[in-house]
């Protein structure tokens, strides 16, 4: 059964491996370049010395130079979970039903529960390895930039943590269900991808930028007559690089800063990842139940 699963999914496995290789080459090149530039600019010493306050020009230059370069990798990766999951999911059941091969597959000496469990476990395992590898690469090359900017912006938030793998599994789960319901592989792929977007986009927005746990606020005394505090400064108004500032409003002699603290990254990742997994698992459970009901 393990061999059969491998044989049926080896094309996707090869595609995943190719994607990992391409991302790895880009990530290592960019990562090394960034690390060299980071230390050549003397940023580690500056950060250690003053938290970045007295080398803002250099930091701004560094961030400016590498933000678009990293986005060249991370932005295309945004669509990968949806595409890969929506392609793999319908192949599991949808294609078997469309081509009638379920009649052959389920009349061998493997009970269909074991058949389905084996496939689900192995394909899920493969997807988890793929997702973890991509996220690890992104986190690695991103590390220097993370010290002087926030990880809570969309492209790094989605690719550099748990969300990437969880949304991939979500798309896969939806694909398994749409495959069973539509029995048309291509149609199921399209519907799965659209469903994934519908589920995912608000999910991401709510967990990240729209911040379900609610933003933190900070009141700062006005310096220099409060001329729009963070103008011209790369350091966030909170004084801490990882924070994502959402708004700064002036109230008398104080600035009210609404922001997402850097420390929320993993909390938000767990929430978003958990929601994705929940949707994916519900779709798979629904598919298993329907299959069971239709054939017994």
């Amino acid at each position, binding site marked *: 059964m393990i*061999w059969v699963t491998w044989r049926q999914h080896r094309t996707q496995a090869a595609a995943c491996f190719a994607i990992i290789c391409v991302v790895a080459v880009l990530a290592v090149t960019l990562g090394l370049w960034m690390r060299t530039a980071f230390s050549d600019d003397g940023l580690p010493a500056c950060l250690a010395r003053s938290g970045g306050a007295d080398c803002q020009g250099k930091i701004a230059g560094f961030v400016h130079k590498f933000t678009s370069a990293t986005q060249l990798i991370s932005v295309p990766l945004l669509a990968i979970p949806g595409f890969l999951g929506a392609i793999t999911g319908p192949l599991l059941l949808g294609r078997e039903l469309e081509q009638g091969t379920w009649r052959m597959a389920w009349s061998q*000496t493997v009970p269909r529960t074991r058949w389905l469990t084996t496939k689900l476990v192995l394909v899920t395992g493969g997807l988890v390895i793929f997702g973890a590898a991509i996220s690890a690469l992104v986190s690695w090359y991103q590390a220097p930039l993370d010290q002087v900017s926030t990880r809570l912006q969309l492209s790094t938030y989605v690719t550099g943590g748990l969300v990437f793998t969880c949304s991939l599994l979500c798309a896969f789960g939806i694909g398994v269900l749409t495959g069973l319901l539509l029995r048309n592989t291509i149609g199921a792929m399209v519907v799965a991808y659209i469903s994934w977007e519908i589920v995912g986009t608000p999910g991401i927005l709510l967990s990240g930028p729209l911040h379900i746990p609610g933003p933190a606020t900070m009141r700062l005394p006005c310096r220099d007559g409060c001329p729009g505090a963070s103008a011209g400064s790369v350091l966030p108004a909170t004084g801490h690089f990882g924070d994502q500032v959402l708004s700064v409003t002036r109230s008398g002699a104080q600035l009210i800063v609404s922001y997402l603290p850097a420390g929320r990254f993993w909390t938000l990742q767990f929430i978003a990842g958990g929601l994705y997994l929940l949707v994916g698992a519900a779709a798979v459970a629904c598919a298993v139940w329907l299959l069971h009901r239709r054939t017994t």
Partner: protein
Amino acid sequence: MTEVQALRAEGLGKRYGHIWGLRDCTFTIPAGSVVGLVGPNGAGKTTMLALTVGLLAPTEGHVEVFGEPSRAHTAGTLARVSYLAQDHPMYGSFTVADMLHLGASMNPAWDRPLAEQRVDTLGIPLKRKIKALSGGQQAQVALTMALAKRAPLMVLDEPVASLDPIARLDFMRDIMAAAADKAITVIIASHVISELERLCDWLLVLTEGRLQLAGPIDDLRAGHRLLTVPRQTADADLPGTVIARDDSDRHSTVLVAADPPPQHPQWVVEPVSFEQLVLAYLRRRSAPDLVPAQKAAIG
């Protein structure tokens, strides 16, 4: 040898939505039989076979294979039946070698030498993809898989439909050889009555979801007679049950189910051929409350 029942169906029925694909089927087939399953398209043959294999669950009644209910769908049950589905579905992107590898990895009793030898004898290249094979070659690979599974019951749904006449003969010969050699039970659904006659010793006739006839062919032929009677003879005056009647100017040819054989000075009483028997039952109209059955599918 004790009488083992290979297959036992009792009140077996399958409904698709509001339509009954199969209803009220009761029969028992002893082990070692070669069974022909005959019926027009949509009669419920595929449904009956899928129920036997356990791919579908019955709506009512039950079916047992060697004393075990089919729907249990455990590895033990699955090992007892090998199934060649209609249109011999296989993974098109697999090579022939891949399909045999699949058979080996999914079946503990897989007969590898048999599979490899058979494919080799047929001249089917192992490295070729299934989708690149001709329909006949695909059917042969599928049959090879069914044979190599080494199950005591083999269920074949229209296995020869895509074969040319010569390949059909060879194909049927291989099935017969396997049946005789390993003492397995075989059920073959087919439209080709002449081929079934040479092959089978048991017959099931199915029309519109109902079982019309079931039994050993010798017994069935012994229990039926073809009578030539004067045209004016009414059905009620004939012995047994009239299955088919064909009226010409002065005489009528009537197929009756009657045991012992009827005798009458004015009648010509002849034995029936296999084909006459099958065709008579296929033409026989069912009870009017039945509607044509659907093809088997999940849901």
